[in-house]
C-alpha cells in the first residue's frame, strides 16, 4: 500500500526543519510518496488594485518558489528518497481563505495519510490576530495523521 505524505511548506526555516525530519523518518520506507505543497496567495485587489501587477507578482513569486522547492526536493533525494516519489505542487490562491483550509482540501482530495507542517513560531498575540496555520490544521484535520515540527 502506498503511503502518501503531504508536506506543507511556507519555505521558512521552520518548514525546512519539517522537511529534514520527514526525510529522516521516511527515507527507509519503500512505499512512501511525498508531495511538497506551497500556497501562493495572490494579493487582494483591495491592496494591489491593478490586475497586471497582481499577475506579475504571482508569476515572480511562482518562479522563486519553484526554484526553492526544487532545492528542497533535491535535498529529499539526497537523503535517499527516490526522485520519482517526490512531487512538487504550487497552488495559487485568489480567494480570501486560510492556507490551512487549502492544505486540508489537498489532503482530502489527494488521499494523503499524513500532513506535515512546521511551526512558524508566531507569538500568542499574532496567533490571535492573524491565525495559525499549524493550529488550524491540527484542529480541523480528519482521517489523517498530522505531524507538527517545532
Amino acid at each position, binding site marked *: 500500500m502506498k503511503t502518501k505524505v503531504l508536506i506543507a511548506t511556507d519555505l521558512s526555516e521552520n518548514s525546512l526543519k519539517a522537511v529534514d525530519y520527514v526525510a529522516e523518518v521516511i527515507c527507509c520506507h519503500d512505499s512512501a510518496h511525498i508531495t511538497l505543497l506551497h500556497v501562493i496567495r495572490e494579493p487582494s485587489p*483591495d*491592496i494591489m*488594485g491593478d490586475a497586471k501587477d497582481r499577475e506579475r507578482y504571482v508569476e515572480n513569486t511562482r518562479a522563486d518558489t519553484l526554484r526553492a522547492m526544487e532545492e528542497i526536493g533535491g535535498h529529499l533525494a539526497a537523503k535517499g528518497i527516490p526522485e520519482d516519489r517526490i512531487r512538487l505542487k504550487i497552488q495559487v490562491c485568489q*480567494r480570501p481563505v486560510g492556507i490551512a483550509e487549502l492544505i486540508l482540501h489537498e489532503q482530502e482530495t489527494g488521499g494523503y495519510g499524513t500532513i506535515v507542517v512546521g511551526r512558524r513560531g508566531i507569538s500568542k*498575540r499574532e496567533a*490571535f490576530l*492573524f491565525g495559525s496555520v499549524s493550529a488550524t490544521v491540527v484542529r480541523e484535520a480528519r482521517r489523517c495523521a498530522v505531524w507538527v515540527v517545532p
Partner: protein
Amino acid sequence: MRESELREKIEQHSRFPLRGKLNVITDTTQFMGIRSDDVLELGGSFYLVKGEEVEGRFGLDGEPKFWVKRAIDLSDGSVKIIKLVFHESFVMQLGIQQIKCFRSPRKESRILEKTRGDPFFMQGFTVPDSVGNIVRVIDRIYGVRYYDYILDLALDHETYFHQHFPVLLRNLLLCFRAIQRLHKMEELHGDIRNDHIIIDRESGIYRWIDFDYTYEWSENPFGVDLFGLGNILLLTLGKGFHNLPDIAACGPSGMETISCLTPSDFSLIFRNRIINLQKLFPYIPDGLNQVMLHFSHGAEVFYEKTEELLGDLEACEAEMACGRDVEDP
C-alpha cells in the same frame, strides 16, 4: 443645470446665496484643492461642499480628513458625506502589535453595495467622477458615537451594570450580528472601533461606519475584527477601560486591587489594560467574564469566528435575563 439654477438651489438648501464665482468640479483627484462652497458634479447630481470631516478620535478634535467632504445634496437638501479617493498605506499600532494597513475605496464601495438596505451599516452609493475615481456618497447618520455615549453616562459602575448594561448588551448583539453577516460575505470591516459605531438618534440602532481599511492577514482574515469586537465589549462591560496606572493612582484601595491581579488578567494586546473585570467588579457574572478572558493574556483558546463569540454572548444574555427574572418578585 444652468449656473442660475444652481445658485438658486444653493440659496434654497444652504440658506445663504453663494457669493463670488461658482466653481463646479467634476474631477476630484486633487481633493486638497476642493473647498467649502465648491460644487461637486457627480453622476448628474450636484453637491455643495460645506467643509471636511475631522478624525475626532475618542472625544478629541483631530485632523481634518481632506478626502472626506461634508456636503449638501442640491436635489433635496440632505446632508451627505462624500468620500474621495485617497490611497494610503500605513502601520497601525494595535497595542504592542503593528499591522500594515491600506485604505481601499474599492473595498468600501463593494461593502456599501453588499450592505444596501441593512440598517446596521451606514448607507450610500458609489459614483465615478469624470475621470473614474470611485467616489462614495454616504447618508449622514445623526446620533452619538458609541464611545462618547458610554463614557458620558454619569453613574457608578454597579448602577450602570444593573440598569444600563443589559440593554446595551442586547443592542450590541444585534450590531455584532451585522459584522457576522459581513464576514459571511467574505468581507471584513477592517477598523472596528468604539467610535465607529453611531447610535442612530432616530431609530436607536447601533450602526457601523467606515469600511475602507483593509490589512494583510495570514491565516484568519477576521482576527483583527474580532479583537475590535472584544474591545467594544470590554469598554461596555467596564464602562470605560481600566488600566493599571489609573488603578495605581487610586491610593491604598487601588494598590490592594493590583495585588490581586496576575499577568493573565491583562489584555493580550494592550499590556496595562485589565480584562478580568470581575476582579474589579465582583457582581459581573462568571459567564460574561469568561467571554472576556478569551481576549486576555492568559487565554489558551481564542475566538476565530464571530459566531463563536456571538454564541457565548447570547448564552450570557439569556443567563442574565434568567437571573433578573428570579430576582424580580
